[in-house]
């Protein structure tokens, strides 16, 4: 890709290539292919990528994108050791402040893998800087942030890939194509299951670790004394200030399959009732053991529960169940249905990172686009809000607000800690 100054980028890559031999042992470092080897795009045609959030998940996704042909040039992280380690590996530049990284003209796209409270902020900042975005799930900590994110991504026509990589699995695509093609008949009932959140989390104040910019790590989230929440994903996944728990964090996967297979936002208003347990000891304070029932205006019912990873569509001709690990149906013959040219065929992707890089080049939406990301994240949020309200709420998926419910609508947004804004 060559949006920016090719000469500058070529010079950068030539400098980088000089060190390629020393880095050959690592699969995600720049190799001779950076300058164009057989079957590989020359670097000037490759997508340059930066990482925002170089923890375990971010590193894994970034490696995948590099493996798919992305050209890594920069890493931003509030942790000094993480950004410097990554920068050394890719012979790129470390940034303590992601905003500085986004100013680079030679950067095409970013991978966002920070805390959930940061996701939309990083995505929106990247879009405003003209970068494309691969964003880890879940999308945000409140619905307003989702909607702003969608607006800004579309305003700048950015390519956005949501980190719901099941869409790059053939069996998930097949299942959703079968459902959308009417193989189970008219859908009557849907079941969505996702792994549960965890209690725990230390509340004991600790010294801020050397090399951590805690203020930057917190970002838009409320301030509180440091107590280890930044150490590892498990340190914040279940803390309401940084996430809403696995009802979204893991729920994003089976809910994404739901919206890939069924248009919940076209099913009329949603009546939602839910209950759950919220831990009252430790720092973790998100919903657990949730039990949420949806009834769409078109009569379709949906149950959302904790458990494994599973989405089931039940119609008047049978059901199809999809998980990361496989697909099943009753009757089993449903899975042998051969779809014709007039049936529904969804976008095919075999590599989630690669599909994103291809979108950056072709300017055609990748398989997990922003609209579907917003739809599935909204389902997590309205579930969480219904639980916290402790009563039935009614969601209008067209106006994207609760109907006649000022109290529930208050929960659609959260003020961001200064100076952060969307």
């Amino acid at each position, binding site marked *: 890709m060559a*949006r920016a100054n090719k000469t500058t980028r070529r010079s950068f890559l030539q400098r980088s290539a000089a060190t390629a031999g020393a880095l050959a042992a690592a699969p995600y470092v720049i190799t001779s292919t950076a300058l164009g080897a057989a079957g590989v795009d020359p670097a000037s045609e490759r997508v340059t990528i930066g990482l925002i959030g170089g923890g375990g998940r971010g590193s894994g996704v970034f490696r995948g994108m590099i493996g798919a042909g992305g050209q890594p040039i920069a890493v931003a992280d509030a942790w000094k050791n993480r950004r410097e380690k990554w920068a050394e590996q890719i012979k790129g530049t470390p940034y303590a402040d992601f905003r500085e990284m986004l100013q680079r003209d030679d950067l095409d796209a970013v991978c966002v893998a920070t805390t959930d409270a940061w996701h939309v902020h990083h995505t929106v900042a990247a879009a*405003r*800087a*003209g970068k494309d975005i691969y964003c880890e799930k879940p999308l945000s900590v409140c619905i*307003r942030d989702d909607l702003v994110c969608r*607006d*800004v991504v579309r*305003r*700048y*026509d950015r390519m956005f890939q949501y980190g719901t990589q099941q869409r790059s699995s053939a069996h998930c695509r097949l299942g959703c194509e079968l459902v959308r093609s009417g193989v189970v008949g008219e859908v009557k009932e849907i079941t969505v299951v996702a792994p549960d959140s965890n209690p725990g989390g230390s*509340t*004991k*104040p600790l010294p801020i670790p050397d090399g951590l910019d805690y203020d930057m790590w917190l970002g838009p989230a*409320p*301030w*509180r*004394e440091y*107590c280890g929440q930044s150490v590892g994903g498990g340190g914040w996944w279940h803390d309401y200030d940084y996430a809403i728990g696995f009802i979204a964090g893991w729920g994003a996967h089976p809910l994404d399959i739901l919206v890939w297979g069924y248009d919940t936002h076209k099913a009329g208003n949603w009546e939602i009732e839910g209950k759950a347990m*919220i831990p*009252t*000891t430790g720092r973790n*304070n998100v919903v657990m053991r949730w039990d949420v029932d949806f009834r769409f205006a078109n009569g379709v019912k949906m149950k959302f529960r904790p458990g494994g990873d599973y989405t089931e569509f039940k119609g008047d001709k049978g059901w199809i169940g999809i998980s990361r690990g496989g697909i099943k149906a009753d009757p089993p013959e449903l899975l042998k249905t051969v779809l014709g040219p007039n049936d529904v065929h969804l976008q095919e992707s075999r590599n989630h990172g690669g599909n994103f890089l291809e979108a950056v080049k072709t300017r055609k939406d990748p398989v997990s686009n922003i609209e579907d990301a917003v739809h599935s994240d909204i389902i997590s949020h309205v579930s969480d809000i219904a639980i*916290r*309200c*402790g*009563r039935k709420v009614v969601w209008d998926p067209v106006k994207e607000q609760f109907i006649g419910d*000022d*109290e529930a609508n*208050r*929960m659609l*947004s*959260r*003020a*961001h*800690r*200064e*100076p*952060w*804004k969307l």
Partner: protein
Amino acid sequence: MSAKMNLIACLIAALLLGCAVPTMADEAVDKAFDALKTYDWGTDRNVLKPLDDAVAASHGDAAARAALAKQLAAVLGTDATQAAKDYACRKLSLIASAAEVPAIAPLLTDDKLSHMARYALERMPCDEAVAAMRDALPTVKGRVKVGVINSLAVRRDAASTGALVALLKDSDAQVAGAAASALGDVGSSEAAKALSGFVAAAPDSLKLVAADAYLTCAERLVAAGKKLEALAIYKALNKPEQPKHVQNAAKRGMLAAMSAKK
């Protein structure tokens, strides 16, 4: 008279007099308010659970809601911990009304609690909540000022336009940028006029902020049926001095504006 008869007589008297009879739930809430006085991060949150439950249960009961909000707001004026006031603001964000604004507003100028004050005020639908943030604007500085501007932006407060326009010239680039962005969110003709000048004069560090604010403003104007004003913005941004992605956004905006129904 037996104790049982005494209790029944008291209950009947209370009912006749229209008095609320204390219940176990009321006692639990009172106890929780007592616990809130000394609550700090790390305290077992179970002590506050009756308050969580009472807030949720007050749906549709205006009197109960007002009473709870009043008690929560009262905590803000005490020497309770930051954690306790943080908790009170979070709950007030759900149930507070104009009556609680005077108790929340002073926190806007407190570096440690300004965010939580906005957390409450930003969610409160009453005009008084926005007015409190608008009124605080001249009295706050630096990051706190940026935060207040940002919340006024979320509320799209047109009455702040004059103050925001003045802040476009603030020496603090973050303040000026936040003001520009907020004007974009306000999205009025007056805001557009101010942003027109800012786009041309903004320092390099704020060029993208200015362009984005102007684009946002145009979208708001289209939604308000002011297509011609929006088209003028898109035309102004579709210039070579703007980055490609801004020019392209302007082109797309132009097409969208022309095809808009209003």
